[in-house]
């Protein structure tokens, strides 16, 4: 006989053989205890033997199984509905809307590509003559009137100018150095003639001090002042010096003007960026309360205060041993009666998914739950250790965190716990 046919034979025979034994059916509590797997081994075997022979009991168990499935689906639907409600809550949507508005404003007011290209292109500079340098220029004028120009002063002023520019323009610096060398040679001739260097010095000093650096006039070399042997040729040499100085100062002035333009453009760009930064800061400041509120709502337990979706309802852990409830935003508090297997439960933190449901956890495996904001029940812990965190969706589903970082979740108010990621 083929195996399939033998199975058909077995099936038919079994169906006819598995008849009712006539034993008394167990009462609903025994059926329920069997369903909950809370019977001992001997009772379980005894009832299973009866169930195998009693269609009535098997029908009841199947009906209980259907009911249990629907209860679990109902709880799941409730949790899903709560998640959707939170997603579409104004406290979730408001920060998203603010971010979108800020993004639109930034896109509308951001600098265009051409402006960015201009700002990025470096201008030829020798000295960075910015507003500060221009402001310092009048200071240089009286100084140049009284200062005794000499080469070291010019050189010093040029170096300072380069430093203030902040631009390593080596070719300009080299040119300046060449010019300075020439000026050194020629100034030595100028100083041989008295009084003539003042104008030159003033010109050079004015150009130099336009960088804004007050130049301390170094002491004139005594030899140059005293030597008057080259006086007849002083005029021609002065012209030569002047002509040498003028071309030297002209590029410096041109470079200063360019640097001034650069500085002004940079300043404008800086101001624009500052304005944008201010706008962004204001937007962030506007966003901050919602973000903080959302974070607070997500945490639901910052320090001793446990917030709820109802802004008027707050929980408060007092001295780690008792809990108080406020229904008027914290204006008044009412102490809760806690009953647990410990005389003084050490509570560390809590979470309230609704205004009436609150989970509390603490040391030594303490997990306490209220479903009506009045009566508290102990929840069997997954492990007997200190808990430092809890989150929950409703009065059945919660996740607790131990002090060593482990997490456990339950969907049936602590009857069963599973490790959570």
């Amino acid at each position, binding site marked *: *006989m083929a195996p399939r046919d*033998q*199975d*058909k*034979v*077995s099936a*038919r*025979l*079994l*169906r*006819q*053989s*598995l*008849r*009712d034994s*006539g034993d008394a*059916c167990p*009462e*609903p*509590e*025994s*059926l*329920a*205890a069997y*369903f909950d*797997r809370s019977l001992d081994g001997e009772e379980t075997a*005894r009832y*299973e*033997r009866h169930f*195998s*022979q*009693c*269609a*009535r*009991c*098997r*029908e*009841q168990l*199947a*009906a*209980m*199984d*259907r*009911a*249990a*499935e*629907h*209860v679990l689906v*109902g709880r799941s639907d409730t949790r899903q509905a709560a998640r959707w409600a939170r997603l579409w809550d104004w406290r979730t949507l408001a920060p998203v809307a603010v971010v979108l508005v800020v993004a639109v404003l930034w896109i509308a007011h951001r600098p265009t590509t051409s402006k960015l290209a201009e700002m990025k292109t470096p201008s030829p500079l020798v000295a960075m003559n910015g507003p500060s340098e221009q402001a310092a220029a009048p200071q240089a004028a009286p100084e140049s009137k009284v200062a005794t120009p000499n080469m070291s002063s010019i050189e010093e002023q040029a170096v300072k100018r380069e430093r203030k520019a902040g631009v390593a323009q080596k070719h300009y610096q080299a040119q300046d150095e060449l010019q300075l060398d020439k000026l050194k040679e020629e100034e030595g001739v100028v100083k041989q003639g008295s009084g003539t260097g003042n104008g030159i010095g003033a010109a050079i000093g004015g150009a130099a001090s336009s960088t804004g650096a007050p130049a301390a006039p170094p002491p004139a070399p005594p030899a140059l002042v005293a030597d008057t042997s080259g006086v007849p040729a002083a005029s021609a040499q002065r012209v030569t010096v002047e002509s040498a100085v003028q071309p030297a100062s002209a590029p410096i002035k041109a470079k200063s003007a360019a640097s001034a333009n650069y500085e002004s453009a940079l300043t404008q760009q800086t101001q624009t960026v500052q304005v944008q930064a201010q706008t962004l800061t204001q937007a962030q400041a506007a966003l901050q309360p919602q973000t903080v509120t959302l974070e607070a709502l997500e945490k639901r337990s910052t320090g001793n205060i446990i917030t709820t979706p109802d802004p008027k309802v707050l929980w408060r852990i007092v001295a780690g041993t008792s809990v108080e409830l406020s229904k008027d935003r914290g204006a008044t508090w009412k102490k809760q*009666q806690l*009953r*647990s*297997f410990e005389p003084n439960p050490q509570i560390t933190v809590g979470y309230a998914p609704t205004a009436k449901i609150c989970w509390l956890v603490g040391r030594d495996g303490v997990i306490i739950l209220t*479903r*009506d904001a*009045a*009566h*508290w*029940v102990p929840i069997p812990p997954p492990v007997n250790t200190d808990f430092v965190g809890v989150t929950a969706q409703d009065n059945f589903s919660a996740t607790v965190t131990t002090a060593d970082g482990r997490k456990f979740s339950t969907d049936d108010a602590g*009857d069963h716990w599973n490790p959570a990621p």
Partner: protein
Amino acid sequence: MAPRLANSGQVTTASSDQPAALRFSPSLASAIDRCWRKASAPADWNLTREQFEAILQRSVAHRFEGAQPGEKAIEAYLETLSAHDLALACACSGGNPAAWDFFVAQFRPELYRAARAVAGDAAGRDLADSLYADLYGLRESEGRRKSLFEYFHGRSKLGTWLRAVLAQRHVDEIRRARKTEPLEDENGEVRSDLAVSELASSSDPPADAERVQYMAVLQAALTAALGALEARDRLRLAYYYADDRTLAEIGRLLDEHEATVSRKLDRTRREVRQHVETSLREEKKWTEVQVRLCLEYARGEWPFDLTDRLRSEGAPAPRTAQTDAASARD
């Protein structure tokens, strides 16, 4: 004498069909304390520790009815109780308003959801309403209000117990309706399903004496083989063959994975077949030809017998206080 809680919260005693309560020895005090702490009955339930201990005594007496349990057995039993649910049931049985508010908030939605799952939307609501009334105790017995909560002893969770009561009432109602189904339809003709079977049986050839004998022997061997099975294996077979349940359904009922159910069914079938064939060969001294002939006879149409069919639907339910309550309601 089982204690009850009056509405004022004072403890009184009244006659009851519950077993007489045991008296706990002082050595069980710590176990009772643990139960009391697990119960965590709020003050407004008006349930004292002494009242709760009396409830525990009644539960133990019910569990070990007719036996003399040792302290360890009692202690182990107390640890398995759903103490908080037991306290709630007792407070509700006494009519305490705060306890009822708690029960309504926690269990009423699930009760109605479970009733709809068991009996459908319309019938489910009626089923839940009637159970709700019985839980509150609208009927009186011996001059006092009798609540269905008195039959809850904490051996299971209260929610599971409620579903068990719903399931029992629904199944009994279905069975009652099934047994009272007329053999004839509204036109006065025999029902088609019965007519087919009658036609089939009437078209069978006259009973073969040899065939009848072979089937009787086979049936006895099969019954013996099934009796030798583990209770769980037998239950698994019953779910699969007698109730036509799917592997997934059986897995949920037995708390097993679907693949495990399939594997164990295969193993059990093999064991039964081997047991039957061994019995026929070794005990009945049948030859291989006789064994094959016997199985060939079994492959044929099994003679339909209305009496056998009714008997296989299950014996009438034994009377309990709960079924009495249901009957009084009907």
